[in-house]
């Protein structure tokens, strides 16, 4: 295995591992102000349809 192989392997395996770890961290972290993003159960264009 040459230097390029080591670099690509570490970057690929490490990169995907860090990407997944970051996502899991974000999923597990409880959002502080979740209601700021959306308080709607129905999208605005459907309001008043019923």
């Amino acid at each position: 295995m040459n230097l390029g192989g080591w670099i690509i392997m570490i970057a690929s395996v490490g990169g995907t591992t860090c990407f997944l770890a970051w996502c899991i961290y974000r999923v597990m972290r409880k959002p502080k102000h979740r209601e700021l993003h959306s308080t709607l159960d129905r999208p605005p264009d459907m309001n008043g349809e019923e």
Partner: protein
Amino acid sequence: MSGANRREGWGTRVGVILAVTGSAVGLGNFLRFPGTAAEYGGAFMIPYVIALLLLGLPIAWAEWAMGRYGGVRGFNSSPGIFRIICNRAKGAPYLGVLGLLVPVMIYTYYVFIEAWCLGYAYHYLAYGFGWDSSNPADQGFFGSFIGNNADGELFMHPAHPTLVFLGICVVLNFVLIYRGISKGIEWFALRAMPLLVICAIIIVIRVLTLGTPDPDKPDLNVINALGYMWNPVYGGKSLWVSLQNAEMWLEAAGQIFFSLSVGFGVIITYSSYLKQRDDIALSSTTAVAGNEWCEVALGGMMAIPAAFLFLGAEGAGGSTFSLGFTSLPKVFLEMPAGWVFGFLFFFLLFFAAVTSSISMLQPAIAFLEEGLGLDRKGSVCLLGFVTIIGTAFVVYFSADTKALASIDFWVGNFCIYVLATIQVILFGWVLGLKKGFIELDSGAELRIPRFVGFIIKYVSPVFLIVIFAVWVAQNFGKYVDQFQQDNIVRWSLMLIGLFLVFFVVLTMQAVKRWERQEQSERAEGGASI
């Protein structure tokens, strides 16, 4: 339609992420990816990452957003969701028929491969405990196990073991589907995915600690095995020369595309069961990350290095099936306690296959329920009957896996490209980026950068169309020749045509039903005013 009030939904957020990841993680992660990557060396990872950023992630975000957009409005199947996105345009549901045809037809042969994995896992266990003297590494085992030698070979024995395993897989799939989204698919994904990852990690650790298995062949060691997989300078070509290989770029884009299950019609249905305030931006990104980790960090460190260690460079090549079901059994035969690792490997493939195959059934189940008004029992029975016909066709015409290969080519490749292109155009040009991003942002715990809109609207469709055109140019002539010369290829296409007509007829009925429902809802609304 204002939406069915009594709708199914996911129980937990981790459940939906694992279900989508499980749908994407399959044989392609553990066999196709390492085989393709090793063919081009480590240079393959550069176009692979670029394709992930330009094709994989943007299409995944678009599909999740369109799915929930339709789901909130009461639709869970592609025909219904496409109809809503296109403002109830007449032809739109018929574009969505591909979202039923693709997963159902792929299921018809995928469940057969699933049965091979279960059968191999069982045989390793039986061999290890001495219940059976035959080993999957035996000469001719694979051929006789899948009926490769003659059409109808598996049906000549009244209870051929492969058919028994196939029966178990079919029952398992339909039991899980019958139990529903939360109690079936999610319940299984929450258990199967961690188990799959544990099995994979054990095998990776075993492969990386093998050292030099045969002292007489010092070149066949772990470091060289990893070099075979990851070295960018491969076959005497430098990295720069390797990157000029157009075929490698196509293969990388194809791998990303098929691996993430985008364009299958599955993600759009799964995400339609989410609520408006549920996050989809981070969940979809996490599902993509999970699939990539399984593919690169686990799949890339397992099959090819193991095959190289025991069989050398020649044994580490070959097709997906030959690597998985012929070469690796030889590796497990040579490996200390190989039957344990053989069992773990095929057990993990089996779990990966089940999480994928159940996802292929759900779009049609959702459609039968919302389009025809069938209850769960009725939709499962009807779909069970239809898929058994397709699977029986694939199992009967098993010689050289011709029926399987034909359906895989026309549906598992051709139709998927078409469906993915339709989806990305629908998101970028019909739903529109403004509405699309409002959908992605609703409940979002991750802000998708706005330049992704440009990628989805312009880059991804062009990328897809170019790949599709080159792929057609490379493969179409060969398959047209086969169509003219081979009866089984013709019959396979007729079967696909039959399934297509079946779903088109059902969609016509569904559209009439939806229109009636909308008319009555409007009338009720008018009366109440």
